[in-house]
């Protein structure tokens, strides 16, 4: 499972939508249910899945899935 697929699984579980498809361009602008509360829970789920802790700057800089992928690649 590549990082995008792993993120998609996390998004699908949080939003309770098994058919949800995300890509690097996915953001609150095109996924309206991605609000601040969702961001908090998604970040916590990613931290648990990858056994890492985001930095403050990393979280504040998350505006789309591509931002998450960049962070995960840097941490790999």
């Amino acid at each position, binding site marked *: 499972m590549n990082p995008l697929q792993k993120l998609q699984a996390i998004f699908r579980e949080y939003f309770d939508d098994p058919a949800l498809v995300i890509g690097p361009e996915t953001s*609150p602008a095109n996924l*309206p249910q991605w*609000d*601040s*509360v969702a*961001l*908090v*829970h998604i*970040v*916590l789920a990613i931290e648990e899945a990858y056994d890492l802790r985001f930095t*403050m700057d990393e*979280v*504040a800089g998350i505006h789309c899935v591509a931002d998450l992928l960049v962070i995960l690649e840097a941490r790999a």
Partner: protein
Amino acid sequence: MNGLPFQLHHIGLLVKDINAATDLQVARYGYRIESAIIDDPVQTAQVRFLRLPHGQQWLELVAPMAGESKLANALAKGGEGLHHLCYEVPEIGPACEHLWTGRQMMLAGPTPAVAFGGRPIAWFMDRSGFLTELVEAGSGPLTLASLISPHPQEPQQ
């Protein structure tokens, strides 16, 4: 941090219409208007500050800006009501670190805020979804220091 120098600065209320909400707060509780309606394009919000006579904090009325606004969803989901608490801190960096260490999630900042004359603010959210704002202390309007100065702000009409 040496101690925890968080002081309540304001309570943020999410409203649909700032003028209508102002009229309500003034008539119901005797709040005084302490700022014009301020457009904040970064927060995609319009805000206005009110304060009770001799009050030591403000009430901030927050409404979505026309068009695209991050707050439109919150208003649609939760309606009007309590939106956030804001604390004034001497230095925003250490205060952010303190909240972060306590597992609050930083959503934005520190960023200069038009509503506070460029003083930096930051936003945090806990797991329950409650929002906390931090604003760095300073001098001038809408600072806690201004409330204890010998020349307090005159309420605006």
